[in-house]
């Protein structure tokens, strides 16, 4: 099976002020008190079935996820984490009093199955929107269908910039940091900190890796790159590729790989006695997942390798707060929700992702109004969303459907990612500058639920 780890777009939260203003204006209820915390408005308008999937008491949304099959490890944690956050919201008043019903179906990362389950969700189950559809080839199979049916297609779990086509696909929105931006941010860091060194690329042979490399090439001078090797997820024997990188003399290896292949890269380098500095995409660098994959190699008699040792020094980027930053209000909130509603899963990057994107959805729903139609949700996002747990603003506007626009660079040590330096944002063009974000990230709301 081919796998492309494509999810997450970023949206610059420049429109925070505009959002606040619009939220007040868009609110259909007459009296919304602006004082106090995000208490639900004291409107007396009745809740109606204002759109397919919306009743007086529920909002039903659907998704397609790889719950089984070769792409399931890791990704299958995301939807339950989103469901956990929705359960938390439901237990604390819901969205304008309605409970979110999240119906996610397994597509085993097969576009044919995706086409089928999404039609089931839209044509038979009449969901209000498709939320967080996971995968690039899988979601491409349903993008035109959803737009033709005018079903909101929000926060696709993929970093492809193909979700940013507001003219042809106005219903579709990305969420996570896209791979080109990510490549640029990582590339600029490398060009600055490893000037004069030899760089090697190791990347997945699909749009995840290729877009990442596109971004890297925009920032790293071609003369520095001495080797480029690809891998396909179905072939775990990457020994030859790593040997080739070793032979090329690369001192820094940039890896756009999923966690399993980041771990394999490390293990195969070990076999060759090769220790380049590793710079890894956010997709493949979650310290908890990596430690989990490498932990067995720590428990060997007489050997000197240690799980955390193997991940030490890995440089990566992050667009959500780091899991190790326990004083961060977002991490505290999401950990609380996880412990209550999704305790069996490890609290790792996938769970953080699932909860963060669910939070963003609730933000959007609250903005959409008390009795929203499908168009109201789309308009709410087009008007811009506050940053929420993302460290950089979203790009959302009526002409830009990309999600998070920036990230920070971090280093893994002792199994924990620590932020280094500030958050930087950029765009997807070669000439676009990389700018530092000066505003500090807003804290999570005390109630854990976005204010309307």
């Amino acid at each position, binding site marked *: *099976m*081919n796998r*492309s780890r494509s999810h997450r777009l970023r949206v610059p939260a420049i429109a925070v002020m505009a959002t606040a203003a619009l939220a007040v204006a868009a609110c259909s209820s007459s009296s919304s008190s602006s004082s106090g915390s995000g208490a639900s408005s004291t409107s007396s308008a009745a809740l109606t079935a204002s759109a397919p999937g919306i009743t007086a008491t529920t909002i039903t949304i659907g998704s397609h996820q790889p*719950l*089984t099959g070769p792409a399931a490890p890791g990704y*299958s944690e995301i*939807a*339950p984490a989103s469901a956990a956050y929705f359960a938390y919201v439901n237990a604390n008043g819901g969205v304008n009093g309605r409970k979110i019903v999240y119906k996610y*179906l*397994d597509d*085993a*990362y*097969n*576009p*044919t199955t995706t*086409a*089928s389950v999404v*039609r*089931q969700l839209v*044509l*038979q189950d009449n969901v209000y929107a498709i939320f967080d559809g996971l995968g*690039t*080839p*899988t979601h*491409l*199979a349903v993008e*035109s*269908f959803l737009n033709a049916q005018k079903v909101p297609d929000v926060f696709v779990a993929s970093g*492809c910039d*193909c979700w940013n086509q507001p003219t042809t696909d106005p219903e579709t929105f990305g969420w996570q940091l896209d791979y080109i931006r990510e490549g640029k941010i990582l590339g600029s860091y490398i060009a600055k900190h490893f000037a004069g060194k030899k760089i090697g690329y190791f990347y997945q*042979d*699909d*749009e995840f890796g*290729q877009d990442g490399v596109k971004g890297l090439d925009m920032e790293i001078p071609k003369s520095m790159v001495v080797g480029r090797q690809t891998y*396909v997820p179905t072939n775990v024997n990457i020994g030859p590729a790593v040997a080739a990188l070793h032979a090329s003399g690369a001192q820094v290896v940039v890896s756009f790989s999923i966690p399993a292949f980041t771990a394999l890269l490390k293990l195969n380098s070990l076999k060759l006695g090769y220790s380049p500095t590793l710079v890894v995409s956010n997709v493949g660098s979650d310290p908890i997942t990596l430690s989990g994959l490498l932990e067995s190699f720590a428990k060997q008699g007489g050997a000197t390798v240690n799980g955390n040792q193997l991940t030490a020094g890995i440089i990566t980027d992050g667009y959500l707060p780091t899991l190790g930053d326990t004083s961060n209000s977002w991490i505290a909130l999401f950990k609380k929700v996880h412990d209550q509603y999704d305790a*069996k899963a490890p609290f790792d990057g996938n769970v953080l992702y699932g909860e963060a994107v669910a939070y963003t959805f609730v933000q959007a729903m609250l903005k959409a109004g008390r009795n929203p139609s499908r168009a109201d949700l789309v308009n709410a996002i087009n008007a811009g969303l506050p940053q929420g747990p993302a460290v950089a603003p979203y790009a959302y506007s009526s002409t830009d459907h990309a999600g998070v626009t920036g990230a920070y660079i971090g280093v893994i040590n002792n199994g924990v990612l620590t932020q280094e330096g500030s958050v930087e944002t950029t765009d997807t063009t070669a000439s676009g500058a990389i700018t530092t974000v000066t505003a500090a990230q807003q804290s999570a709301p005390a109630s854990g639920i976005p204010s309307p």
Partner: protein
Amino acid sequence: MRSPLLRILGIALLGAAIVVLLSIKLNAFRDYQIAEIAVYVTAVAGLTVLTGLSGQISLGNGAFMAIGAYTTALMLAHLGWPFVAVLVVAGIVSAATGAIVGVAAARLHGPYLAGVTLMLGVALPFLAFVYPSTLGGDQGLNVVYTQPAFLGANFPLTRWQAWISSAVALVVLVLLANLGRSRVGRNWRAVRDDEVAAALAGINVAQARVLAFVVSAACAGLAGALLAIITALVAPGAFTITLSIALLTGAVIGGLGTLFGAIWGSLVIVLVPVYATDVATSHGLSTAVASNIPIAAYGVVLILVMLIFPQGIQGGVLWVLRLFGISAARPSRQASTPDAMPSAGETPARPHEKEGTQ
């Protein structure tokens, strides 16, 4: 004494009427499922003829579906041809590939044929990675298809998809039924049952075997073309080895060598997982458990059907009919397929033993 051809056409017309009725009465998602089932029927019918009638196992018909699908996507994107023409070309291109594979596999039997076709099914989709600019790589190619204008703007797309897929499936079934009853079909059965005797009787064994591959590949190619237009995307992830294996299990579960079996098998492939998913999720189990129950259930269904109905579902249907005194028009000869997996000399029907090799 009614002409068998008329009877086949009659059954086909009845099938068409049923499809039209269902497509109007059921909701849009069911229409889409009808289209999906028709796609599988087209592919499984070709495979059941290849494996059941000519005795050649193929674990790679998904590759032929991919060829039909990609041909369709490329033609619709670069040439402006009407869909029927594209369909025909897709069938021809797949048939040509089938000829090549058939020639390469002409001397292969049993597990060796299975091994080659398995690797074909695994390897062919990777061509999309080797030629990413033409074939789209991992993301695949979008399929540009609009329903004909004469239907009017209000005609539901899914109903049209159900109609066109079912029409192609029915045409293919009628053609295969006639082929099976003709000299070609008799040659296939002769080659399947005893190659040496068939050769002695003057049948060109290699030609018959290659022809079977051609027909099977053409059917799979047509199915792939239909799949391309109903899902609107062709990508390597849609043509994994799981697809090829599903086609074979569908053919055997339904009743190997029978065309009705192709229909039952396709119903199992499309409906059992959905039904099992609904049952599993309604019990509020954790995601990991609920999502794997349909898979485990599918495995159990395969095992049980094979143990309880060795002739597949069609065999079971005929058995039930016989119980009620309705004898089948033709005895369902689910003859063993010696080429597929020769037994260890235990089949009672064979006049002489096949010796084990050292």
